[in-house]
């Protein structure tokens, strides 16, 4: 066994790279082992058809300034293709509502007023919990001062919202998105668009309780720009910059190096064995993989206690989102939209989303599918040949466990997706030069994410903060000494944010 590193990071997704960069910056010898031929994971920009490129994760709502500044990402090639994309709630016949950072355009006066009230309140809540995204979650009953201080600060931040708003937050926190939106708004497509962000990625829909408000607040955690940013070169532009920053600080990144297992000696993680049989030792092993992969495939249940193992086993990790990439020979026409420059939400109302979810709950999928559509090439000409375009869409609901398996359903799901898109952009089929549909099964197979689940486990209250992925592993340390988590399955969760990676790096550095 060679011993080239203080820390081995398994997986070069964005969180693994962030963790590597922070550790390397603090002087640790870091080795990142990435199974794929390139870094970036679900954030990597890949060529899906000759000349056409896209990343599975296509926007950066949660990216923060601090990360960009700490790692000097600008110097390492990171820049924005767009800094404040609006979200457009499309209506099939036109009459769209545009949601910007400041307010609504095209909405009724009542909805505009309600949105201002809603946004003000949500921003206030977001500010109250914002520090906790970037902090180690507390451990209940640890007796530790720092855990007590974190809990105390959390309580204080809620209390200082004022009695009325604190009560309101308590009331709203577990509400289904549908109830929340019905309380505030009247326009069906507006409500659907706002509800979309509350649920996407999890096996939840507008009528599901347990996550809506916390997911919306999480999405508001980014402060890079005043709106929704897009990275130049696709999200891979960011992950490449992260890799460059890590490398500049001395981290070694090895691609095409799949880790087969973690080597445990005397109850301690001491190294990794690569798929080819190579053994590499390091005193600290950090996994950017999802919790099920980390604990079951890499580590092995025999090194873990029984109830802990069962909590990991029970994590809900069945992905529900399919990713569609279309290579278009020109700009498609969306009815009533001058230019499809924003993030387009194709759902006439919340029931439409719910109907798609209902089908998926039982292992099927709906004929009509809601989706979020982006044409990143409108903002970034590096993604498609001149005059041509990339359409990038998140389509729900595509259940990981579709009855009969995805090989039997991929074509028909794609047909349904195209038909649903045609309702808003008639004639778009004729513009398609090439297409790629990534079902959750494909995401699992190609990116090594259990269930093809974006967030490495549902983003919901029962799997949040000190329960993410579960107590006993929610402070980046795991029950096995020397083994740590830094991926989206750890607090705060998924989305291109890097907080799990930076929090993990801090936890590891504090140990020394």
């Amino acid at each position, binding site marked *: 066994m060679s011993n080239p590193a203080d820390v081995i990071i398994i997986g070069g997704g964005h969180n693994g790279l962030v963790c590597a960069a922070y550790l390397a910056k603090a002087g640790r010898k870091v080795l990142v082992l990435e199974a794929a031929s390139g870094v970036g994971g679900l954030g990597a920009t890949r060529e899906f058809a000759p000349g056409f490129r896209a990343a599975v994760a296509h926007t950066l709502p949660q990216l923060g300034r601090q990360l960009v500044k700490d790692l000097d990402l600008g110097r390492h090639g990171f820049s924005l293709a767009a800094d404040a994309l609006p979200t457009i709630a499309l209506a099939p016949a036109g009459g769209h509502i545009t949601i910007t950072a400041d307010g609504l355009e095209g909405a009724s006066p009542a909805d505009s007023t309600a949105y201002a009230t809603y946004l003000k309140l949500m921003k206030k809540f977001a500010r109250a919990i914002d520090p906790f995204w970037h902090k180690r979650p507390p451990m209940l009953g640890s007796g530790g001062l720092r855990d007590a201080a974190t809990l105390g600060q959390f309580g204080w931040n809620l209390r200082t919202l004022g009695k009325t708003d604190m009560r309101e937050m308590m009331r709203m926190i577990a509400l289904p998105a549908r109830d929340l939106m019905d309380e505030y708004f009247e326009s069906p497509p507006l409500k659907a668009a706002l509800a979309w962000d509350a649920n996407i990625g999890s096996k939840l829909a507008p009528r599901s309780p347990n996550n809506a408000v916390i997911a919306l607040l999480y999405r508001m955690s980014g402060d890079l720009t005043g709106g929704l940013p897009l990275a130049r070169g696709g999200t891979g532009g960011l992950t490449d910059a992260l890799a460059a920053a890590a490398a500049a600080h001395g981290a070694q990144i090895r691609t095409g190096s799949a880790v087969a297992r973690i080597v*445990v*000696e*005397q*109850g301690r993680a001491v190294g990794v064995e690569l798929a080819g049989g190579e053994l590499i030792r390091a005193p600290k092993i950090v996994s950017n993989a999802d919790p099920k992969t980390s*604990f*079951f495939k890499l580590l*092995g*249940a*025999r*090194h*873990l*206690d*029984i*109830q*802990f*193992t*069962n909590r990991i*086993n029970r994590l809900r990790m069945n992905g529900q989102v399919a990713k569609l990439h279309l290579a278009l020979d020109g700009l498609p026409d969306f009815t009533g939209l001058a230019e499809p420059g924003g993030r387009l939400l194709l759902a006439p109302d919340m029931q439409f989303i719910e109907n798609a979810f209902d089908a998926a709950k039982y292992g099927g999928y709906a004929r009509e599918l809601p989706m979020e559509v982006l044409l990143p090439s409108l903002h970034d000409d590096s993604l498609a040949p001149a005059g041509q375009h990339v359409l990038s869409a998140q389509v729900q609901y595509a259940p990981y466990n579709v009855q009969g398996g995805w090989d039997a359903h991929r074509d028909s799901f794609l047909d349904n997706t195209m038909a649903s898109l045609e309702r808003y952009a008639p004639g778009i089929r004729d513009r398609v030069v090439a297409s790629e549909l990534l079902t959750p099964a494909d995401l699992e197979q190609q990116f090594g994410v259990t269930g093809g689940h974006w967030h490495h486990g549902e983003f919901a209250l029962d799997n949040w903060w000190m329960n993410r992925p579960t107590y*006993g592993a929610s402070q980046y340390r795991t*029950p096995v000494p020397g083994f740590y988590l830094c991926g989206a399955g750890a607090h705060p969760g998924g989305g291109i944010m890097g907080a799990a990676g930076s929090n993990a790096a801090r936890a590891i550095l504090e140990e020394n």
Partner: protein
Amino acid sequence: MPVTVKLQPAEAIAHVQRSILPTPFYSRTSRLNLNQQWSEWNGFASAVYYGDAHLEYFSTRNTCGVFDASPMRKYRFSGADAAAMLDRMVTRDVVAQAVDTVAYNVWCTDAGRVVDDGTIFRLGTEEFMLCCADPCYDWFCLSAVGFDALKIEEISEEVAALALQGPTSCALLKAMGFAGIEQCKPFQIMRFPFGGGEIMISRTGYTGDLGYELWLDPRDAEQLWDQLFSVGAIYGIQPLGDESLEMARLEAGFLAPDVDFHGSLHTVQRGHDHSPLELGLGWILNFKKPHFSGRAALLAQRESGNYRRLLKLDIEGNKPAEHSILYADKKCAKEIGYITSAAWSPVVKANIAYGLVEAKYFEGPIWAEIYHQKELRWQRKVARCTRVTKPFWSPERAKATPPPDC
């Protein structure tokens, strides 16, 4: 609306009336059970006593007695991951356990609290039988998560079980034709042809005396019973009921589930479950093993030293300290624990008991507040308790191979 009640015919609910199912030996045990005194054990009839509990008890110390252990829950673990899975679940080293041996074990929650105890029989490299008093299949399934090359089957009703215990047990088995049984060491397994197939005999038991447990196909059960009682007549064989076994196991220093401890999954209140250290089972915690479920918690508890102790107590006088509260002083001012099991031991001639005592007090003076009746009038006495570190009853013959007179 008229209400109709449809009753089952009496014969359809005969088993409900008895609340019990017959074991493979029931045709024989029911004939011997003079007063039809049955308790329910996992749904099966288990004799409370057959004729006289004391006479039965004395057979375990002077001749031999037979206990029908068929209601015991038995599970087969097989497959390439079986050893690793069990090794992670229980506290002793299963990987190192030799084939054809038996090991007493305990399994714990993550917090190091006892779920249950039982014996693991290693039947082959990749095959085990686990026996425990109560059903535990749910915990085994939870414990199997993450181990794929593994099959767990409940085989309780595929295996009939008898415990043959007492000083003449080896001689009786030899006389029955089980040649070489005298060479069977404690916790070893031997196999012999019997009936339509094979009988497995392990040198194990719950009485602390010389003894064996016999495992066989239920179809051969009655034949075994008949042979034991015909050949065994001159060896003083007796059937054993629950009561006699309860006395014997207390003398031997064995724990009874739901008497001396509650499984952690069945307690509601904090601290009403137990760690193996509290129960005096520190000797089966193999901390050299890099991992077993609950190891970290138990290691921390051992290091802290701050845990209750289930003590073996020799209590002055002859009044069993049943249900007694324990105190640190004769005035009964400071309550420090309670008795879990108590009896007058005829063979040791001592008033023995187990008492669970708070961590701070287990090394100091211990007094038991005993209530007993004299012609229906309740009397109270406070008796001094002395700690005993060895089992109350542990004769040499239980360990000797070959056993004496064999």
